[in-house]
Every structure is written in C-alpha cells, then in structure tokens.
C-alpha cells in the first residue's frame, strides 16, 4: 500500500513538473500571435452589436460551442434524472 502511495506521489510530481516546465516556454500576457484577438477586439462590436466582447465571442463567434456546453448541462440533468429514477424506490434489478 505504501509503495503504491509513493508511486502516486511520484507520478503527480512528474506531471506537475513537466507541465510547469512546458508552460514556462509560453510568455504569459504577451503571446507571439495576437491576430485573432485583435480581430475580435476591432470587429466584434460592429459585427455583433454587443458591447461585451466576451459575450460576443461566446454567443456569436463561438456560439456553436456554447450550444454544446448547454447540451453538456442538459446531458448532466438527464443523467441525474435517469440514475435517480429508482434509487430510492427499493427496486434493485431491472431486465434489459
């Protein structure tokens, strides 16, 4: 058991160190390429009519992703409804 805990700690440490090392290669706040961000800032307000560029990106430029995220939430709700439908009723087995 102790050996497994040691391995777990080692693995997590390795992943953390490598990820920190990897992201240190990217300059935060000053990316090499900025063209897509600039496009949103310059054209977002006029093209979509919204003052809030975040919402413009989320609901216009990437609205399809937002539909996907809303679907994820809907999936979670359906999952909860399905799983809890008989947990409390004492019926334990169900034929396929």
């Amino acid at each position, binding site marked *: 058991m102790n050996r*497994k805990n040691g391995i777990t700690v080692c*693995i997590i440490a*390795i*992943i953390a160190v*490598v*990820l920190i*090392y990897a992201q240190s290669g990217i300059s935060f706040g000053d990316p090499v390429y900025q063209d897509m961000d600039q496009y949103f800032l310059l054209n977002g307000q006029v093209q979509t009519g919204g003052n809030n560029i975040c919402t413009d990106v989320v609901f216009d430029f990437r609205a399809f992703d937002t539909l996907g995220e809303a679907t994820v939430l809907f999936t979670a709700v359906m999952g909860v409804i399905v799983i809890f439908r008989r947990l409390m009723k004492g019926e334990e087995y169900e034929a396929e």
Partner: protein
Amino acid sequence: MNGIETLTTGFGFWNPIFWVAGFVIALIITWIIWRRGEATYNTSPSSTGPFLSGNAEPQPGEIHVPGGNLYWGFTQALERYYAVIKPLHTGNLADYMLWYMGITAIMLILVVMVP
C-alpha cells in the same frame, strides 16, 4: 465478373469467387469420399451410441456442459502469465487513474528528455 472484384493487398489478393470455388471443390471431394464408404454400415444406436460401462445413457436435457472453463488447459499452461495480468484488473477506480497518469508521466518524461 463485373461487381465481384479482386481485393488486391499489394502482396496477395482475395476474391470471394475463388473462395466459393474452393468451398465447392472441398464439398465435392467430401462427397466422393463419402460415396466410397461402406454402404452396408449399421447405423442403428446399438453400434453408434455411447457405451457408458453398461449404464443407461442420460436423457438430453439432463446433461449440461457449462462453458465457463472450456479452456482450462490453456489457462493452466499460461498460469504464470495470468498470475501477472489478472491482478492488474482490480476494479478500483484509483488504480485505473494511476495507470492512465503513469502512462502520461512516462510519455512526458520521454518527450521532454528526448528532443
């Protein structure tokens, strides 16, 4: 044969027509062998039925051969292999996670160390 074409793999080929032809030829050979057999062979149960030390043969339905251990000999032969492999399938979510993270960690080391 338009429609049934040969699947060429670059090294060999596969054509269902040839396969069917081979199947038919095998059937014909079987039939020839069967024809050459002894026609007067006694097919009554007294000569083909199992001889169970003089005991009555059990009715069909009384015998059930469970399939679970059909390859007992095979698993015995690979006992040492299975002794390693089987305990890995613990059914414990933490172990599953550990394997996934472990492979990720090994690959990360490989990628960062080997340029």
